[in-house]
């Protein structure tokens, strides 16, 4: 049962990811990416990591993807233009990807000890466990996060300041095309 569900969601994630690359219009790619995030959240849920799954939906599918969709809505990003594919990419692209994937798989396979398998449903991912681990074992990374967020906020303000200089107050919401 769990194996079956795992392959359903993993297959959905990979399928959405491939669809993301194939779609020509950015909105369809963005929707596929939301699909990838949702499938990943389902996989986390199957492991028993409920909080991580909810955080995945709220932060990735709910917040970061809103940003993507906003860009598409605001900029009127049109159909993607395809260039004439280079011969190099055409003949070497697929073999190189296969090489990359197999080497990654080999490394991961060697790194993971055989007896320490994660079982479905008994991952210590309840909100309370996360809270205890985050605030006792991983204190420094947590505080560093606030610095990272601070840097991001500074970046936002820089963007906002440039905007107010060029536009000035009182400008209509819809700008001229």
């Amino acid at each position, binding site marked *: 049962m*769990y194996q079956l*569900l795992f392959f359903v969601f993993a297959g959905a994630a990979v399928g959405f990811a491939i669809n993301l690359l194939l779609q020509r219009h950015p909105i369809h790619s963005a929707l596929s990416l939301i699909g990838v995030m949702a499938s990943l959240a*389902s996989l986390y*849920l*199957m492991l*028993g990591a*409920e*909080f991580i799954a909810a*955080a995945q939906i*709220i*932060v990735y599918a*709910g*917040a*970061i993807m*809103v*940003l993507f969709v*906003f*860009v598409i*809505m*605001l*900029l*009127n990003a049109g159909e993607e233009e395809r260039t004439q594919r280079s011969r190099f990419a055409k003949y070497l692209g697929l073999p190189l990807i296969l090489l990359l994937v197999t080497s990654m798989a080999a490394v991961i396979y060697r790194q993971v000890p055989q007896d320490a398998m994660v079982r*479905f*449903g008994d991952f210590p991912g309840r*909100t*309370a466990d*996360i*809270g*205890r681990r*985050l*605030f*006792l074992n991983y*204190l420094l990374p*947590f*505080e560093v*996060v*606030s*610095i990272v*967020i*601070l840097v*991001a*906020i*500074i970046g*936002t*303000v820089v*963007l*906002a*300041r440039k*905007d*107010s200089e060029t*536009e000035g*107050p*009182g*400008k209509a*919401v*819809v*700008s001229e*095309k």
Partner: protein
Amino acid sequence: MPAEYIPIVIFLVLATLFPVVTLLAAKLVRPSSPYAAKLRPYECGIEPESDSRGRYTVRFYIIAILFVIFDVETIFLFPWAVQFKTLGVFGLIEMLIFLGILVVAYIWVYAKGALEWV
């Protein structure tokens, strides 16, 4: 997947089926006689001047970035709030440092005028 999610999946399926069935049922009874003028986007009765998908103000984008940033901050508050009793004063001080840095950032954003709409 923990067993308590099975009813949620059933609920999701039923909630999706409801609009599908309604739309299909409506398809059987409703009229359909479209013509070009009827299908034109609404613009108070006149011919639409241009394609509606133009370029709009970047303010919305900045709101979205600020939302992403503060949303990440909020998500850290949830496990802390749940474990508040066990973590005690130590956890409180940790969180106050975390929030302190962000409140400084918030005040700075406020002072710089990034929250002004126009």
